């Protein structure tokens, strides 16, 4: 098939100007980096059953973002700072049993969100910045400046380095903390390092699709990948791929939606990305369901 024919087939899908627009280029670049980092860290998050911690960090980024806005700084710094603080607090409370851990996470989350409520209130009354809430909560991929790319890349590399360096002990301790401890692995220290990587990944996900939706990018592709393969290395690659696909397709659809009703507004990128990830997860459950049906007959 010639390039012209492919172009003709895809034309209805891609609205004019998509590939030419500068902000689209930035969105695509940032989206890819974030998807890879989120997917990688996300695989460990799912294995360790720490989706709630990831969700809590995302929500707490709201607090950081609103504080950053109040201080007149870019939200990403707020996200990273909030993530680090929250991760440290969670470590300090340091409860090992999952139930107690979830409870403590919830309490910290509640307190943090309460603070976010206060900060956003101050934002809107003092600075009169409308739309602050929406930007922080739901992201704004198409408003990035190109200076963001190196920053995102730096944070992304930092998170990936942590995971790569600690890959094997992290994997073992995620599967069984007891077995890891028996081999002399410092399980708690490892947990802290993982939380650091998690904080960075969540901060990155937050700027693309928003703080309260960031979990989708963190956990969705990873969980989907883990359903399709048992090997962690393959899962990481797959999670990154799924994340990139969801981000790019989501960005494309959001761009196209500018021309959909109601005209001129466009649907949010985060909506598309989250929906695509959700559908992907559901579809990945289909083969298992089919297997059970055929066997149980």
């Amino acid at each position, binding site marked *: 098939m010639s390039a012209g024919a492919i172009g003709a087939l895809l034309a209805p899908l891609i609205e004019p100007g998509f590939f030419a627009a500068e902000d689209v280029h930035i969105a695509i670049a940032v989206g890819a980096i974030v998807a890879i980092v989120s997917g990688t860290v996300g695989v460990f998050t799912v294995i360790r059953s720490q989706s709630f911690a990831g969700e809590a960090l995302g929500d707490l980024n709201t607090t950081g973002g609103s504080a950053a806005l109040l201080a007149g700084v870019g939200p990403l710094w707020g996200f990273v700072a909030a993530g680090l603080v929250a991760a440290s607090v969670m470590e300090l409370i340091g409860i090992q049993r999952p139930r107690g851990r979830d409870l403590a996470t919830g309490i910290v989350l509640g307190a943090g969100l309460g603070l976010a409520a206060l900060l956003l209130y101050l934002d809107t009354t003092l600075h009169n910045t409308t739309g602050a809430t929406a930007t922080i909560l739901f992201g704004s991929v198409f408003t990035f400046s190109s200076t963001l790319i190196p920053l995102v890349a730096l944070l992304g590399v930092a998170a990936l380095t942590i995971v790569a360096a600690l890959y094997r002990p992290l994997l073992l301790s995620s599967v069984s903390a007891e077995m890891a401890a028996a081999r002399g692995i410092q399980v708690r220290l490892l947990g802290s390092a993982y939380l650091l990587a998690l904080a960075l990944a969540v901060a990155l996900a937050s700027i693309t699709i928003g703080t309260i939706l960031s979990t989708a990018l963190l956990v*969705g592709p990873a969980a989907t990948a883990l359903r399709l393969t048992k090997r962690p290395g393959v899962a990481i690659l797959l999670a990154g791929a799924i994340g990139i696909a969801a981000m790019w397709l989501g960005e494309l659809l959001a761009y196209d939606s500018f021309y959909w009703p109601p005209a001129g507004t466009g649907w949010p990128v985060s909506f598309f990305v989250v929906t695509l990830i959700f559908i992907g997860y559901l579809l990945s459950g289909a083969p298992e369901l089919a297997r059970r049906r055929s066997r149980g007959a």
Partner: protein
Amino acid sequence: MVTAWEVASIVAVVAGLVGFFVVLRGSAFVAHAVPNGSFAGAAGAFLLGVNTLLGLGAFSLLGALGIGVLGRRGRHDVVTALALVMMLGLGALFLNLTVEYSSEVYSLLFGEVLGISSNELAPTVALALVCVAAIALLYRPLLLSSVLPEVGEARGVRSFRMELCFLTVVALASTMTVPVVGTLLIFSLMIGAPAAARSLTDRPLVALGLSVAIALITVWSAIAASYITNYPVGFFVGSISAGAYALGRGWAAWHRRAATPLPSLT
């Protein structure tokens, strides 16, 4: 203003009762996820011009039951997370399609207790009565199923059915409490008070009662503080709940150290 106190008190009672089981079952994440799901419902209702409570209720139930059904197959925490963000994503879409964005978002997420009108009192009370009745009715089987699910199964208390009932009650509780405290913070009330209560007593019924009492104190203090400082109620709810939890744990730790003698070295 009087209405705010009444509604908030009712909300606190329900949150305390439902929250007791949330904490018992270790369902903190679910209690966070379901109200957030209702956010989309409220946004959708706003878009369609329908009564907010209807939208809240529909999406709460949808989210809750979705978590229950999907949670059977997939990992529970992943399913909860994905259901949550899917709902929030829909909420983002609905809000985006309306003209006013930011102020609506804020009040849906963080609550607007001082903005409760008197004609919202009746449906709130009705929903509250349903929740309280459900908890009273399900108390024993739910308690057994939460503590010893296998033994419950052996006695005819089906775990899945109890899970669905429990999720439905959480959905109903979310529906009536969200307009007051907001989707992001209702769960703070639902876990802080019961967590504190169970540190203070060994008896389940007493813990249930204390849970309600602490929730009431939390809400009343939050409203008073908000009235004085003009800061959002949600801020105080989150902080006071965290404070109650911390105090509870401190008390329990101190009590345990005082009560149990140190193990002898012989």
